[in-house]
C-alpha cells in the first residue's frame, strides 16, 4: 500500500515518503508561533508527536535523519585578543632566543680548541657555498606563501593563534637545548664574530641586529655561532609547510601547491646540511620536535572530547593550561574556508575545501 505524501505541519517535520521507507525528521526547535488554531496543540504537540513518532519508528523505518539545529553560541569565535596574547608569547620567545644566542656565542669553543664534530652527512656530501642561500630563500618563500594564505582564511584569528603558539613553544624549547650544551661549529668555513667579553652595549647591538634581520644570514644579521641544537631554519620550514598543508583545500590544484611547498621545504632542509651549517642531529631533532608538537596540538584541538577523558595522556604536557585558554571557546574543527581579508559587502565567498561537501553546506548555513 503506497502512502501518500504528507506535507510538513506545524513544528513537527514529519513526513512519510512514498515507496518503501519512512523518513522521519525531527527538528529540535523551540516552540513555533502560536496560531489561534494551533495554540492549544502547540503545547502538547511535541509530546504527542514524539510518542507517535516513536511508534512509527517501531513499525517500519529504514533510517532516521535527525537535524539538530545549530546551538545559539558561536562555534568559532574570533577572539582577537587571545591571538594578541599568543602573538606576544611568540614575540617574547623569539626575542629571548636572540638573547640566548648572544649568550651562547660567548661559550662556543674556538675552532682550534674543538674542531667540528664527526657527522655522517658531512662525510658523504662536501660543502657547497650557495646551499644556505637556497635554504633561506625557500624559507622566505614559504613564509610569504603561508602569510598570504593566512590572510585569506576566514578564521584567521584561531589559526594565527595556533601558529604563534607553536612557533613560540618551539623556540622556547630551542632556547633550552641551545643553552644547556654548546656544540662546536660544524664546519671550518664558519667565521664567528669575535666574542665580546664585557661589552654589554655591543651585545645589545647584536641582539637588535639579529632580531630585526630575522635571524637570516642573507640579511647579514647572523654572524653568531653556537645556536646549533636545534636548527631554527628547519623549524620554520617545517612548521610553515605543515600549516600550509593543513589549512588549505585538498582539491587537485591545491595538491600541486602542496607538492611545491613540500619540495621547497625538503630542499631547504637538505641544503642546510649541504651547506654544513648545522649538524645532522640538529635537523633531525628539529623535525621530530616540530612534527610531534604540531600533531599533538591539532589532535587535542580537533578532538576536544579528549580533554575531559580520564585516559587522555595528551593532557599531561606542561602547556595544557595555555591550550585551554586558547581553545576553550573553539567548539568545532576549524573548517578550511576562505574569505576576503577586508570584508567588502557581499564579497565573502566560501570555497568548500574538503570533499565532505554535504556536511560543509549544512554547516555553512
Amino acid at each position, binding site marked *: *500500500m503506497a*502512502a501518500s505524501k*504528507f506535507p510538513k*505541519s*506545524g513544528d513537527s517535520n514529519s513526513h*512519510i515518503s512514498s515507496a*518503501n*521507507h519512512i523518513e522521519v525528521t525531527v527538528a529540535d526547535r523551540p516552540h513555533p508561533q502560536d496560531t489561534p*488554531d494551533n495554540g492549544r*496543540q502547540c503545547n502538547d504537540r511535541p509530546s*504527542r508527536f514524539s*510518542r*507517535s513518532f516513536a*511508534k*512509527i*519508528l*517501531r513499525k*517500519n523505518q*529504514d*533510517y532516521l535523519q535527525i537535524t539538530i539545529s545549530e546551538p545559539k553560541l558561536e562555534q568559532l569565535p574570533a577572539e582577537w585578543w587571545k591571538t594578541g596574547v599568543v602573538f606576544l608569547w611568540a614575540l617574547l620567545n623569539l626575542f629571548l632566543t636572540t638573547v640566548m644566542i648572544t649568550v651562547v656565542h660567548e*661559550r*662556543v*669553543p674556538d675552532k682550534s680548541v*674543538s*674542531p667540528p*664534530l*664527526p*657527522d*655522517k652527512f658531512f662525510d658523504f656530501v662536501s660543502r657547497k657555498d650557495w646551499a644556505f642561500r637556497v635554504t633561506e630563500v625557500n624559507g622566505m618563500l614559504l613564509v610569504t606563501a603561508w602569510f598570504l594564505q593566512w590572510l585569506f582564511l576566514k578564521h584567521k584569528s584561531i589559526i594565527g593563534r595556533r601558529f604563534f603558539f607553536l612557533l613560540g613553544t618551539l623556540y622556547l624549547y630551542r632556547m633550552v*637545548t641551545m*643553552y*644547556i*650544551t*654548546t*656544540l*662546536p661549529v660544524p664546519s671550518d668555513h664558519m667565521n664567528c664574530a669575535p666574542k665580546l667579553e664585557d661589552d654589554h652595549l655591543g651585545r645589545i647591538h647584536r641582539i637588535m641586529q639579529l632580531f630585526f634581520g630575522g635571524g637570516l644570514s642573507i640579511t647579514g644579521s647572523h654572524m653568531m655561532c653556537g645556536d646549533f*641544537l636545534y636548527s631554527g631554519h628547519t623549524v620554520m620550514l617545517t612548521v610553515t609547510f605543515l600549516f600550509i598543508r593543513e589549512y588549505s583545500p585538498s582539491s587537485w590544484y591545491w595538491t600541486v601547491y602542496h607538492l611545491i611547498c613540500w619540495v621547497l621545504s625538503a630542499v631547504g632542509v637538505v641544503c642546510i646540511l649541504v651547506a654544513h651549517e648545522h*649538524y*645532522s*642531529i640538529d635537523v*633531525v*631533532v628539529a623535525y*621530530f*620536535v616540530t612534527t*610531534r608538537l*604540531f*600533531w*599533538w596540538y591539532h*589532535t587535542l584541538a*580537533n*578532538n576536544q572530547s*579528549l580533554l575531559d*577523558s580520564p*585516559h*587522555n*595522556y*595528551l593532557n*599531561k604536557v606542561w602547556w595544557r593550561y595555555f591550550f585551554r585558554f586558547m581553545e576553550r571557546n573553539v567548539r568545532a*574543527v576549524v573548517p578550511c574556508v576562505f574569505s576576503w581579508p577586508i570584508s567588502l559587502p557581499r564579497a565573502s565567498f566560501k570555497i568548500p575545501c*574538503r570533499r565532505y561537501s554535504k556536511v560543509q553546506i549544512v554547516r555553512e548555513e
Partner: protein
Amino acid sequence: MGIKKAALWSEADVGLWLAEEGMQEYTEPLRHMDGRALLQLSQADFQRPPLSRITSDGGRHLLEKIKTLNIEHHIEAHKNGLTNGHVVISHNGDASASSKTKRNGMVNGYNKELVRIPIPEPIGPQFPTEWGKTGIAFLYAICCFVFTTIMISIVHERVPPKEVTPPLPDKFFDFFDRVEWAFSVCEINGMILVILWILQWSLMKHRSIVARRFLFIVGTLYLYRCITMYITTLPVPGKHFQCSPKLYGDWESQMRRVMKMIAGGGLTITGSHNMCGDYLYSGHTVMLTLTYLFMKEYSPRRFWWYHWGCGALCAVGVFCILLAHDHYTIDVVIAYFITTRLFWWYHTMANQPDLKVASQSNFLSRVWWYWFFQYLERNVRDVIPRSYQIPFSWQSLHWGHMKYSRIDSD
C-alpha cells in the same frame, strides 16, 4: 493493546488506543467505531463534520497511525506461509535486519511493541592475550637492542679523542663538579626499578598486552637512539672517561665487544660498557623514565607511596647521571622528552577507540609506526584494567584469595 489485532478491536479498545496515542479529541466522534471501521477511515471522512471540526491537520496524523495499524493488519493477515514476496513486508528492513524479521513480519514470541536492537557482540574476549604478537614485539626489541650495541661499537671508532676535542661546555657541569660514585647510584636505581617492574608485570592479569607495549616502546626508543648516536658523534663529556682503544677494522674483536656489552646489559657496573660515543641520547635515562612511567601507569592509583618511591628513584638516578658527568645535559633532556612523548602518544592512541582509526582529524596516526601499532593493538578493545593475579594457580591453598582487584581498577 497492540497485541490484539486492530481489526478485532471493540469501540472501547479504539477509544483506549486513541487516548494512548494522544489523540483524545477523536475519542468522542469516533466512539462508535470499532477496529475494523477505524481501519477504513479515509481522508474524505475528515472533510465532513463532525471530524472536520475536531481535526487540526485534516486528520493526517490519525490517518498516519491508522496506516501503520493497517500494515500490521496486513502482516497478521498474511502470516501463513507467505515470505518476502509481500511488498509491505519486504521493507521491514530496519537497522536490526536479522533474518528472522524478514519472514512474515512478526515471529512467534516477538512482542510487537518491543523493538529488538541487536548489539553486535564483541567477537572474542575483550583482552585477548595473543602471545604471538607479544613474541614479535619481543623480537623487535631484541633486534633494536642488538642494533644499538652494534652501533655503539661503530660509533666508538669515530669518537674524537679527548685531546683533540675536549668536553663541550655544559651548564650543569659548570655548577656541579663531578662526583665519583654517582653513576653507580644511577645504575643501582635502574636495576631496582627494572626488577620492581618485572615483579609488577608478572603479577598483572593482562601480562601479554602490557609486555607488548613495553617492548614496542623500548624498542622504538632504542631505534631512535641508534639514529641520533650515529649521525653526529659527540665527544666525551668528561676527562675521566677511559675509552677502550679503537679496533680499526678488526671485526672479530668488535663482535666480541658487542657480545660482552649485551651480556652485561650495557651497564658500567657490570664492566661491560667501556665504549664511548653513545651520548645523544642517554639510554639510562630512557630505562629509568620508561620503567617509572609503566609502573605508575599499571598500578593502582591508591598506591601513592609506591609511585612516589619509584619517582624518587627515577629522579635521583637521572640526576646522578649528570652528576657523574657521564652524559651531557642535552642527552638527558632529549631522552626524557622523547620517552614521555612516545609513551603518552602510544597510550592515548591505545585507550581511545576513535584514535585507532586513521582519519583526517586523527593526527596521531601520522607517525611512521602506526601500522605496527594497529597490528599490536587491533584486538584490544578497551582500557586495560589494573587487575592482578598470581601468575600460577594455587589450587590447593585456598587461603590466598585471588587478587582480582576490581576495586583497584578505576
